[in-house]
């Protein structure tokens, strides 16, 4: 790799100037950017990148003749997951043009027609970027976004530290080491009003102050990258797209509290994030930005990566620390708080990925600048992962206080297939659902808690009329029940009892009184559980009961599933007059239950049908009927 020499504080500005020159496009230069984060790779990004390189190689003489210098850059994620694979073409001095849904074939055409021929394929371009700080600002989905945490994602090559430095990277550390005292750093973070982005929203500056004041000769900082909420992936995106921002944030935090060693605890399900972190750490060490005697100032910080081993509870800070120390990841009561007794009983400060990534920007631009964004009590931005039945799935970074309606309808583009909004589940298994009546709620820490949900890590799963809220609650309960570490009985036994009740209700065996029992048990689990997992586990059940009680009642009293999801309470059939015999249902049916000849009325064999609803979703003619299952003969007689 780089044979870079170690930098000192005095060298850094000149080094940055060099990086800027390399990053900026020179006249005649063309850069092709391919989004190769996990989402881009899952959509086939590796094949697209290979096709681009092959095509460029085979057209080398033409490229030279046209006087172009072409560079292929792999970048992280711009947040437009729905549109992957994304390829951008950037001619020096022109706006950067974005192609979506790129296949290897289209990639070859892009090289031939656009890069070599100079003729953009207009009908395949979805947007243009003129200003890297406000990408696609002419589009509704992006107009209201403010990119602080995601500022570099999709622009820099995350495996090249020069790119990060060119975009202002390590300038926060530079400012700190040039003369801010640890107390001065903490004061700046306090002014910013930054609160923890991992879920609970504890003020970051205050947390640092506790750790800084704690007595001890050895202290640690930890990055919680155990993003376990199903439906949240902003931390993965930051780690894959801008790993140095997290490292720089941790360096600044370590300086502020007096730590000389740190850990990034990253879940093993994110192999690419771990790989890029390792590369970033190596590069920072080689330049003297990490390790001993950083930038020649005498400040030292050693950073390790610990791979999580698949336990949701390890997102809880005391469980996470147990796991780093090689033990079972079970939480312990607090106090003592980690700030006083953390890793190996030493003072330890834990923040999550997104919190750390905000820190360098706060130190560069000032706490007051950051505090100017957001609301009175929730400052800055939050990155949300929009998924589910929403049109524009992906990441969105918005100022705190924006309404749910703006996120769902303007940024998210509304519900897929123009169906009806039903709810958004915020904060994963710890959060709650927000029905249509709460769409105008401002999204900030306190408003969400008041509505029974919570910010959590920022997962937003949008559901439409085709989602059963009882089934969704059962899904989350099944998740927390299997992830409960088993240490305290309210969580271990309580979640099991709630799950069994929900499973009965979904199977059509609910009984009067079940709903009240669920509410009562849910409150008890919240009150008596040891850690955040149990204390929030009943939230999805409690909020779905609060806002969609009629659906529970339909399952229990009428033995019907209004959304047509719970297999025991639904059946599918073909409406003969509407069926055109197009074969779509046959094509999607996974169990071979749908059959028929082309252009003749199809049929569904109830004995083979697994009631998955694929045919119902696929039919373009509304010819699939969803009804109650044929009642058992005994019940008909009754």
């Amino acid at each position: 790799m780089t044979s870079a020499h170690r930098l000192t504080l005095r060298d850094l500005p000149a080094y940055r100037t060099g990086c800027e020159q390399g990053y900026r496009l020179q006249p005649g230069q063309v850069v092709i950017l391919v989004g190769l984060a996990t989402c881009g790779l899952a959509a086939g990004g590796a094949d697209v990148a290979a096709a681009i390189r092959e095509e460029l190689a085979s057209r080398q003489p033409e490229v030279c003749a046209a006087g172009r210098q072409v560079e292929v850059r792999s970048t992280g994620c711009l947040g437009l997951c729905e549109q992957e694979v994304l390829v951008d073409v950037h001619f020096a001095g022109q706006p950067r043009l974005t192609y979506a849904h790129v296949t290897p074939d289209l990639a070859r055409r892009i090289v031939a027609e656009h890069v070599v021929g100079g003729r953009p394929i207009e009908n395949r371009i979805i947007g243009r970027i003129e200003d890297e700080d406000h990408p696609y600002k002419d589009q509704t989905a992006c107009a209201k976004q403010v990119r602080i945490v995601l500022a570099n994602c999709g622009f820099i090559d995350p495996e090249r530290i020069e790119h990060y430095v060119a975009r202002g990277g390590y300038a926060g550390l530079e400012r700190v080491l040039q003369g801010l005292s640890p107390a001065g750093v903490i004061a700046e973070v306090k002014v910013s009003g930054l609160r923890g982005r991992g879920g609970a929203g504890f003020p970051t500056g205050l947390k640092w102050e506790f750790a800084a004041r704690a007595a001890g000769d050895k202290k640690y900082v930890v990055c919680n990258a155990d993003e376990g909420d199903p439906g949240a992936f902003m931390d993965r995106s930051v780690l894959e797209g801008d790993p140095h921002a997290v490292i720089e944030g941790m360096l600044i935090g370590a300086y502020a509290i007096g730590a000389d060693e740190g850990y990034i605890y990253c879940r093993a399900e994110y192999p690419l994030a771990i790989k890029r972190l390792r590369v970033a750490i190596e590069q920072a060490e080689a330049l003297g930005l990490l390790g001993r005697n950083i930038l020649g100032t005498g400040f030292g910080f050693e950073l390790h990566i610990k791979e999580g081993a698949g336990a949701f509870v390890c997102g809880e800070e005391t469980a996470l620390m147990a796991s780093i120390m090689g033990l079972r990841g079970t939480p312990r009561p607090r106090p003592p708080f980690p700030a006083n007794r953390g890793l190996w009983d030493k003072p330890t400060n834990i923040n999550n990925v997104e919190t750390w990534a905000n820190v360098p920007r706060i130190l560069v631009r000032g706490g007051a600048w950051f505090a100017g964004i957001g609301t009175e009590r929730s400052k800055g931005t939050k990155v949300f992962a929009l998924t589910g039945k929403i049109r524009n799935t992906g990441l969105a970074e918005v100022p705190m206080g924006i309404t749910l309606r703006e996120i769902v309808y303007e940024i998210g583009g509304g519900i897929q297939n123009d169906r009806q909004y039903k709810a958004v589940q915020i904060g994963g298994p710890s959060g709650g659902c927000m029905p249509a009546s709460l769409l105008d709620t401002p999204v900030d820490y306190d408003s969400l808690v008041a509505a029974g949900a919570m910010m959590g890590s920022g997962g937003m799963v949008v559901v439409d009329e085709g989602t059963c809220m009882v089934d969704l609650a059962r899904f989350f309960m099944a998740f927390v029940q299997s992830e409960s570490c088993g240490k305290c009985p309210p969580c271990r036994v309580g979640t099991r009892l709630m799950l069994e009740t929900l499973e009965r209700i979904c199977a059509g065996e609910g009984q009067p009184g079940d709903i009240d029992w669920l509410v009562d048990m849910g409150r008890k689990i919240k009150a008596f559980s040891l850690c955040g997992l149990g204390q929030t586990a009943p939230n999805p059940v409690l909020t779905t009961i609060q806002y969609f009680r009629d659906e529970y009642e339909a399952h229990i009293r009428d033995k019907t599933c209004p959304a047509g999801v719970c297999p025991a309470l639904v059946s599918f059939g073909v409406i003969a007059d509407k069926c055109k015999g197009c074969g779509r249902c046959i094509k999607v049916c996974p169990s071979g239950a749908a059959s028929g000849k082309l252009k003749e009325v199809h049929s569904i064999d109830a004995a083979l049908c697994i009631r998955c609803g694929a045919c119902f979703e696929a039919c373009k003619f509304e010819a699939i009927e969803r009804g109650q299952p044929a009642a058992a003969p005994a019940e008909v007689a009754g």
Partner: protein
Amino acid sequence: MSAGPEFDRTALDRILAAHQGRSGALIPVLQETQETYGYLPRPALAIIARSLGMPVSRVYGVATFYAQFHLKPRGRHIVRVCLGTACHVRGGERILEQLSASLGVAPGDTTGDLLFTLEKVACLGACGLSPTMMVDQATYGRLTPRAALDVLERYRRGAAEVAT
């Protein structure tokens, strides 16, 4: 406790040597052991315990606590079907049912020919492309039950080619 004649501890000894003396080494040691042997063989647990100076019960406790560790041999290809929220809402269960029926194994189990291990995972973090699954290190998105079967078929054919 004897390590058994069939267990080759050479690789394990190398892993243990690399971690010797470092606090908190148990989980990385288990991870690397599993990476090397494909699972955590019984004799390995005893050797690890002795080497790190802790009771076997502690090693066993950690190995059974985390979803990542396996005490039984696993297939050549690990198929992880995502059942995170986004995949749940968009039909991840259907994919799992279909693969489970096609492979003839329940989630968590391995096919008789040791070709595939079928697992469920809480979230792969590629929610924008749900429903998704991972085969070994490759992630597949925008799946239908059919498309998932096609992916497995490719791996099956790949295995057949290697065999002939």
